[in-house]
């Protein structure tokens, strides 16, 4: 009876080896797809954040000039500082959500990419509107201060302290 159990053992061993090889091949294929997905997602994320930031802070200059009473140096400096903060926080978020677990074929790669890029685009939209909200609130506060100052100077004549 021992030759029959030996051959059964051989068959079981060969099946185990084949399964291991298939698993390693799957991991290699999955790694290849995952790396491709990373290398497609990263430039698109960086491009999107550069585009949104450029557009937002091109028109942000006007808001800043209005808030800081046409003082050009501090207005442009504030604008640049906010732009840098915007870039940093968006790039950090784009890199933080980079991880993709498992991609078996091209279909899953396209779906994973769509998921990541879509989520990042929504996040960029939320940050854009948050920054616009801050711009508008600063403008409201600045115009309120200007109105108060005009009223004050109407009531109290200009004196040198």
């Amino acid at each position: 009876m021992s030759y029959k159990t030996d051959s059964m053992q051989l068959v079981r061993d060969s099946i185990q080896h084949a399964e291991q090889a298939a698993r390693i091949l799957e991991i290699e294929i999955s790694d290849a797809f995952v790396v491709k997905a990373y290398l497609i997602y990263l430039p698109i994320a960086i491009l999107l954040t550069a585009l949104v930031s450029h557009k937002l802070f091109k028109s942000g200059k006007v808001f800043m000039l209005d808030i800081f009473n046409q003082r050009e140096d501090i207005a442009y400096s504030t604008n640049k500082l906010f732009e840098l903060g915007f870039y940093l926080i968006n790039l950090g978020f784009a890199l933080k959500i980079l991880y993709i677990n498992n991609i078996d074929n091209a279909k899953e790669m396209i779906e994973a990419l769509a998921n990541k890029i879509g989520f990042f685009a929504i996040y960029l939209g939320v940050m854009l509107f948050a920054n616009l909200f801050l711009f508008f609130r600063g403008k409201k506060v600045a115009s309120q201060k200007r109105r108060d100052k005009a009223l004050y100077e109407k009531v109290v004549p200009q004196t040198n302290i």
Partner: protein
Amino acid sequence: MNIIITYIVYLLLSAILVLLVGYWFYHFGEVYIVMLMPHDVQTAKLLNGLLLLGYYLLNLGFILFFLRQINSLQHWNEAILFIAKNLSTNIIVVALMHYLNMLWLYLLSISSFFNHNKNQIS
């Protein structure tokens, strides 16, 4: 995967981040600190330099602390994940500190310690 390429890419990206962004913050933030103490511009510039130094030290710590783990990486996707994880923590901490600094500067500028005028409406 190539360990030398991951070292080079990681250090290059981190160097760009630290040096370029640091210089921009240093250059464009000078107006704010000078605004806080307009009577003493030299102290303001020194303060600005101190902030830049602190920024450099923080980023050096972030970059070099996990540099050893590059040796244990085995595949390209692990390399990209390593770079992404470290760069993302670095960038997010720098961004949060940047917004906090803006907040401190604003609060300091309306506090009585730095405000020599009597009335706040200006």
